[in-house]
């Protein structure tokens, strides 16, 4: 090219200096010859290329936790977020935006109108999940949130984000959907030190807070146990002194009943509180036992009493308090009181102030009337309905013999007494071998006994007369020949649930023969302990003897569809019936009732949307006993506990990654990396064949030579 230009330049200089004729022709031919020579050398081609401009990939993560239902800058925070998303879409330009929702997990952003349902907002988890699965790394991220995120606070979140992002230069922009703190007082957090154990004080730390300029210097805090069919029981209370908008209160509570329990922690919020839903938290506790505290009261000492006492005393998990009536008014002790090792039966103390401290009460062959227990029987019935365990063991002074028919205690017995007999007889002395019912053969609480004896039982000396089993009660043993007045086999061992408690009726006083008899000796006398292990275990809701485990895989949010998972014990079958009762002061119909076939495998049961509050789910499979699970449904739960938007955290996210923090109204002002031009197809075609250039150059070079000779330049 340079040679051609120099040649042309020299030619022009030459023609300018000379006066030769035909200078124009010389110049033109020289020019053409040079151009063609250049073409022969360079062989020009036409290039046809087709390409696209690819916008920057931008991930937009929109908070889907329930805190987005709280007030935001433009309506609710969720509504504000939707508007921000619209602005982003409009201003995206060439940027390729993918909109995702994040909460407990990450998923495509639900269409507008879908309420945020997540119980937490795990941004880091969402990012981790997205980046691991991405086939193209994003060039920018946008987080649309109120800043109430799980994980590190403003100080550490930047570092955590940088550790996740693929490299430097990926900015994370933040769009804040709320700016102002709502006027609110709330229970922000409730923490307990360790697991709840019956009768043991549990330390509880309650964090309360005030925001939005609400005036609250002190907040009364109350901890109550929610009971079924009874007013909530106050467990603890205090006053939180609020400094700088927050306060921490240390409280202690003691739950006397083991098993699933519901506890409410509530504040008395001042006037002007705009979010009353977070003034109380409902917590479900699965109260365990260190030891079962059991009251054993026997009307007289017998071999049956001896057997039960020996088993209770040998059981390291049982703390037994025993009172046996060793002397009656008719007894002629032939000694002064000071020569006797007898103490007064403290009936009033036991059945009033001490009663809640027991996990279970056993009345064995005990007549309430002579020992002034009748007046405390309503207490005992309420104790059972409030979650206590109760066993009535037979003998001449039990059931009808103890005149319990028509009393409040009959109300919590699994058998009817009024229908037991029309005569004066209260028991039948004919020896009997109890017959194990179909339910008894499947019942987990009899499994330890069945593993020893199969379906065999020893003869037992006589029975108490009792009536039909109450509706919902479970009969495990029945009389092989004797019928109730309705014609049904008379129950001998039956179980029932009443309110929160459970009770067992043993219309026999010969179960000691499972521990001491020729029959019992073949298993070294372990039968009696095996029976009581199952019965007491069931009474105390030992998971070994529960027919099913109940879970809520997604928790329960008030007003949202909820699913309950029931995992029956292997081998159980029959119709699975589920009832869900609200923990109300007054008994009422269940909030949900449903049935499903049970095949022994876990089954998910949709239970619909529940109102806020505490609930007890009761599951029964076939004719077996029931299992329970306490759970709470809250409107906001943890997500509403602290409703203040956390703009500082969003700012830290943006600044630590080179992004920007903007309000939702300014979402359109965010800028994203430029689009890239990407060639997809390119074709190269010679402008003319190579020989054409060579031939043309030679031709015009020859013509040029002829013009020069004619002009006298050769």
């Amino acid at each position, binding site marked *: 090219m340079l040679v051609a230009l120099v040649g042309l330049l020299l030619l022009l200089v030459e023609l300018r200096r000379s006066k030769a004729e035909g200078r124009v022709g010389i110049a033109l031919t020289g020019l053409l010859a040079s151009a063609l020579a250049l073409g022969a050398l360079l062989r020009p081609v036409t290039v046809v290329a087709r390409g696209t401009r690819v916008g920057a990939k931008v991930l937009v993560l929109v908070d889907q936790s329930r805190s987005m239902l709280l007030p935001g800058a433009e309506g609710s925070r969720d509504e504000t977020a939707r508007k921000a998303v619209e602005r982003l879409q409009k201003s995206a330009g060439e940027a390729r935006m993918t909109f995702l929702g994040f909460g407990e997990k990450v998923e495509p952003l639900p269409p507008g109108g879908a309420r945020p349902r997540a119980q937490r907002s795990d941004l880091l988890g969402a990012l981790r999940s997205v980046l691991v699965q991405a086939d193209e790394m994003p060039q920018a991220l946008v987080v649309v949130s109120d800043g109430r995120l799980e994980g590190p606070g403003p100080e550490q979140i930047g570092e955590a984000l940088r550790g996740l992002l693929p490299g430097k230069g990926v900015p994370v922009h933040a769009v804040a959907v709320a700016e102002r703190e709502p006027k609110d007082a709330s229970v922000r957090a409730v923490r307990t030190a360790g697991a709840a154990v019956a009768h043991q004080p549990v330390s509880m730390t309650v964090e309360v807070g005030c925001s939005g300029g609400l005036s609250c210097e002190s907040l009364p805090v109350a901890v109550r146990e929610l009971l079924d069919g009874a007013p909530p029981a106050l467990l603890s209370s205090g006053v939180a002194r609020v400094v700088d908008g927050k306060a921490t209160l240390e409280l202690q509570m003691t739950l006397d009943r083991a098993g699933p329990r519901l506890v409410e922690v509530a504040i008395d919020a001042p006037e002007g509180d705009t979010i009353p839903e977070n003034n109380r938290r409902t917590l479900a506790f699965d109260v365990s036992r260190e030891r079962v505290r059991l009251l054993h009261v026997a009307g*007289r*000492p017998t*071999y049956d009493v*001896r057997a039960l*006492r020996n088993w209770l005393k040998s059981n390291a998990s049982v703390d037994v308090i025993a009172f046996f009536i060793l002397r009656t008014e008719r007894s*002629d002790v032939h000694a002064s009181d000071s020569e*006797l090792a007898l*103490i007064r039966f403290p009936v009033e103390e036991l059945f009033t102030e001490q009663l809640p401290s027991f996990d279970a009460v056993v009345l064995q062959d005990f007549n309430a009337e002579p020992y002034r227990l009748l007046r405390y029987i309503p207490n005992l019935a309420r104790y059972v309905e409030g979650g206590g365990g109760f066993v009535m063991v037979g003998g001449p002074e039990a059931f009808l013999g103890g005149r319990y028919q028509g009393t409040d205690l009959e109300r919590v017995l699994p058998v009817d007494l009024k229908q037991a007999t029309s005569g004066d007889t209260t028991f039948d*002395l004919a020896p009997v071998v109890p017959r194990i019912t179909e339910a008894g053969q499947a019942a987990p609480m009899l499994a330890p006994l069945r593993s020893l004896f199969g379906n065999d039982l020893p003869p037992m*000396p006589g029975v108490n007369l009792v009536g039909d089993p109450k509706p919902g009660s479970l009969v495990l043993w029945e009389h092989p020949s004797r019928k109730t007045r309705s014609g049904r086999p008379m129950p001998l061992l039956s179980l029932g649930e009443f309110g929160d408690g459970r009770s067992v009726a043993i219309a026999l006083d010969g179960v000691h023969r499972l521990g001491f008899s020729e029959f019992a000796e073949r298993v070294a006398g372990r039968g009696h302990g095996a029976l009581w292990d199952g019965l007491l275990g069931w009474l105390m809701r030992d998971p070994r003897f529960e027919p099913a485990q109940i879970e809520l895989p997604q928790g329960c949010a008030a007003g949202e569809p909820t699913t309950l998972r029931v995992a029956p014990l292997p081998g159980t079958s029959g119709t699975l019936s589920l009832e869900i009762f609200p923990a109300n002061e007054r008994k009422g119909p269940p909030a949900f009732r449903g049935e499903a076939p049970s095949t022994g495998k876990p089954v998910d049961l949709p239970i619909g949307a529940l109102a806020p509050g505490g609930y007890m789910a009761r599951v029964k499979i076939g004719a077996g006993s029931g299992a329970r699970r306490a759970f709470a449904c809250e409107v906001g739960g943890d997500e509403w506990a602290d409703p203040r938007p956390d703009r500082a955290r969003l700012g830290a996210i943006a600044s630590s990654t080179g992004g920007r923090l903007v309000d939702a109204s300014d979402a359109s002002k965010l800028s994203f990396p430029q689009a890239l031009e990407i060639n997809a197809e390119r074709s190269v075609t010679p402008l003319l064949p190579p020989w054409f250039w060579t031939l043309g150059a030679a031709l015009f070079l020859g013509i040029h030579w002829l013009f020069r000779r004619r002009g006298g330049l050769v």
Partner: protein
Amino acid sequence: MARWQGGWLALAAIAVLWAAWPQAARAFGDEGSFHPRVLLTGTASWEGARRSGSSQWSWELKRRTSAPARSVPTAVRADTSSLLAEPFVVWAGEGPVAPLTPREVDNLRRFFAIGGTLVVDDAAPETGQFGRDVRRELGRVLPDAAPLALPETHVIYHSFYLVPRPVGRIEGAKKVDAVVRGGNTQVVFLAHDLLGALAVDPSGIPAFAAVPGGESQREQARRFAVNIAMYVLCSNYKDDQVHAPFLMRRRGRGVP
């Protein structure tokens, strides 16, 4: 002899009348009631004046306490399965004891294995022959358990009455020996002729003189018998913590 036969008939008649007399049921079919069964080994039989001792034991228990008891106790042979029907048995006698048969040894082991309680009552503690022989034979049944003296704080001394020491027809040793297995006192060796102190003749008069304390000693023997029955029925109930402060206070006042 004729006088004795008539006496036993009268006693039996009284027992039948007592059993037939309307009274509150004590336990279904008497099965759970205290039953001082007499253990028989080898070719031994249970006859003589002390035979009324076991029914008197039941009678005293029912009269003084709320506990039901079998009005007409029976005897049980050590080599029969009936031994395993109830958790209490009394091995009483005097003079030498023949070695237990293998079947008797095995049966007694099964009795103890499921928690049975045995009271050995030497009717002739003056010679001690019976007590020694029984210890020898029980050594074969329970070779791993040696008798030890029960401390005076043992529940057997305060299971119903506050009893300062064991007594029977004779005052005997101040302590009793016992075999304790798994925390349970399973064998109590009495060298006081307890059944002799309880026994009555057909007219209801004590069959043997209580020496040296006379009727006061007999009353103490009856109380001790009631305590043993209560221990059999209630185990160590009176050792429970709720009773301990009361009993300590009462003992602290020097009350027997």
